[in-house]
C-alpha cells in the first residue's frame, strides 16, 4: 500500500515537473556520456598496450649504402661487423635482457614494406637497397630498452637503434590527454547536473508543499514524505545514465567495431561487451549523485 502510494506520488511529481525532469535527464545523459567516453579511452589504451607491448621490438638498423649517420662513415655494414653484432647479442651481458632476436635482411625489409604500403604509390619508388637490414629484438622487459640502445648505437655498422614502444607511447599520451579532457568536460557537466537536480527538487517540493504540509500534520514518516522527491531525482538521473550507456554501446558497436576496425585492421578495439562494464558505473554514479543532491536539498527546503 505504502509502496503503491509512493510510486503514485513519484509519478505525479514527474508529470507535474516534466520539463525540468527532461532537462535533468538530458544533462545527466551528456555528462555521463563524457565520463563514459573517458573510461572507454582508458580501456582502449590498456587494450592497445596489452596487444602491442607484446609485439613491439627494439630494432637495430644496420648501415646501407645510402646511410648518412656518423656510425656509417665506412659505408654499408660488412659481414664482419654483422658477425660482431651477433656475437654481442649472444653474449651473457646482453642475452639476459632479451627473449630472442631475428635478423631482417634488406630483402625481408622490402617484402614487409611492400605488404605494409600495398595501397600506396610509394612502393613503386622504393628499391630494395634503400632499405636497411636490421636485428629485431624481443625484450624480456621492454623498459630496459636503454641498455640495448647504449650498447649497440656506438657500434660500427649500426645506423640507429629504435624502440617501437616510443612511437606507441606518443599515441597513448595523446589518447590519455583526450581522456583527461573528456573528464574535465564531464566534471563541469556533472556540476551542472547537480545544480539542476537541486533546483528541480526544490521546485517540486515547492509545488507540492500543500501535500507535504498535510503529510507532516497527519504524522507521515520522514521517509514517506521525502522518498518520492529523492526517487524523482534518482529516476531522472538513472534514465540519463541508461541513455549515456546506450550511446556508448552504439559507438563501440557500430563505429569502433564497424568503420574503424575495417580501416585499422591491426588495431585491437574494445568490444561493445566491454563497454557494458562501464554502464553500471555510470548508473551508480548518476543515481548516487542525484540521490545525495536531492537529500541535501530536501534537508534545507522541506521541513519534516
Amino acid at each position, binding site marked *: *500500500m505504502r509502496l503503491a*502510494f509512493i510510486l503514485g506520488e513519484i509519478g505525479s511529481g514527474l508529470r507535474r515537473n516534466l520539463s525540468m525532469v527532461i532537462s535533468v535527464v538530458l544533462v545527466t545523459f551528456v555528462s555521463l556520456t563524457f565520463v563514459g567516453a573517458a573510461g572507454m579511452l582508458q580501456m582502449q589504451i590498456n587494450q592497445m598496450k596489452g596487444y602491442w607491448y607484446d609485439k613491439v621490438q627494439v630494432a637495430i638498423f644496420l648501415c646501407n649504402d645510402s646511410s648518412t649517420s656518423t656510425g656509417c662513415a665506412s659505408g654499408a655494414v660488412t659481414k664482419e661487423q654483422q658477425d660482431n653484432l651477433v656475437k654481442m647479442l649472444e653474449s651473457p651481458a646482453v642475452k639476459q635482457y632479451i627473449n630472442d632476436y631475428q635478423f631482417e635482411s634488406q630483402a625481408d625489409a622490402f617484402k614487409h614494406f611492400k605488404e605494409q604500403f600495398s595501397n600506396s604509390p610509394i612502393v613503386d619508388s622504393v628499391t630494395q637497397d634503400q632499405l636497411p637490414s636490421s636485428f629485431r629484438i624481443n625484450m624480456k622487459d621492454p623498459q630496459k630498452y636503454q641498455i640495448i640502445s647504449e650498447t649497440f648505437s656506438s657500434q660500427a655498422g649500426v645506423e640507429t637503434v629504435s624502440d617501437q614502444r616510443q612511437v606507441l607511447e606518443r599515441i597513448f599520451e595523446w589518447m590519455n590527454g583526450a581522456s583527461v579532457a573528456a573528464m574535465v568536460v564531464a566534471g563541469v557537466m556533472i556540476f551542472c547536473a547537480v545544480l539542476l537536480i537541486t533546483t528541480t527538487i526544490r521546485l517540486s517540493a515547492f509545488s507540492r508543499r*500543500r501535500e507535504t*504540509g*498535510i503529510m507532516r500534520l*497527519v*504524522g*507521515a*514518516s520522514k521517509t514517506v514524505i521525502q522518498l518520492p522527491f529523492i526517487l524523482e531525482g534518482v529516476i531522472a538521473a538513472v534514465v540519463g545514465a541508461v541513455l549515456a550507456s546506450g550511446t556508448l554501446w552504439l559507438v563501440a558497436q557500430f563505429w569502433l567495431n564497424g568503420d574503424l576496425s575495417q580501416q585499422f585492421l591491426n588495431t585491437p578495439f574494445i568490444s561493445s561487451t566491454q563497454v557494458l562494464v562501464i554502464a553500471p558505473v555510470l548508473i551508480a554514479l548518476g543515481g548516487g549523485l542525484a540521490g545525495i543532491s536531492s537529500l541535501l536539498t530536501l534537508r534545507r527546503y522541506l521541513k519534516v
Partner: protein
Amino acid sequence: MIRFENVTKVYDTNARPALDAVNLEIDRGEFTFLVGASGSGKSTFLRLILKEDRATSGSVYVAGQNVANISSWRVPKLRRGIGVVFQDFRLLPQKNVFANVAFAMQVIGKSRSIIRETVPEVLKTVGLEGKERRMPHELSGGEQQRVAIARAVVNRPGILLADEPTGNLDPITSMGIMGVLDKINQNGTTVVMATHDDDIVNEMRKRVVELRNGVVVRDEARALYTSMIPVVGESRRMKDASDAEIDRAQGVQQ
C-alpha cells in the same frame, strides 16, 4: 491529556514572550475553547502541542509524555495522535472528497481495505454521505471544513486541535461545524479549539481559557466568551496593562 507546566515561548528576545509562564491542564475527553485577541498566544499554544515549535522554558506534556523528550524520528508518531483543523481548510484541490480523507491514511501506510471501510464511516460522522466523489471546489465552505475535520479524525487521534475552524464561515454554517466537533468530542476525543467567535462560545457553554499577551487570564468551566467574574488582583493588573496596550495599538492604527 495536555499539560503545560510553566511554559514560556519567546520568538524574539526584544519583544514580549508569545506565551508567558503558562500553566494549564486539559483532561482526556474535555472540550476547551481557547479565546483571546490575535497575537494573544493561541496559535503558539497549539504549535507547542504539535512540537512544531520548542518551548523556551517549561514543559509541555501530551498524553503523559514530555514533548521535549520526543526524538525527531518519533515526532510523526506524536502527530498521528493529534488531528488538526485550520481556518483555511487546506484540502488538496486536485483530489476528491474521498481521496482527500484517504490521503491521511495512505501516508501512514494504512491498507486499502481499511481505507475503503473507514473513510465512508468518517464522512458519515461529519455529515457528508454521498459526496465522496465531489471535488473541493464543488463544495460550500462548511462542507469543505467538514472534509478537513474528517481528514483530521480519520486516524482516530486522541486529540483534535482546531485553529479558528469557523473563521471563514457564516454563523449558521459555523453552528453546523460545532455540532460535528461536539459529536467527535462525545466519542471521546479531546478537543481544543482556538476561536474569536463569541456566539459559538456562548452557545456551547464549554470550558473557556482566555489568553492575553501570552498569559492565561481566565480559565472557567461552562463559560461565556467574556467573563462574568470580575477580574481582580494580579489578573486585574494584567488585564489593565493589556487593555492599555490594545488601546495604544488601536490609537496607532487610527
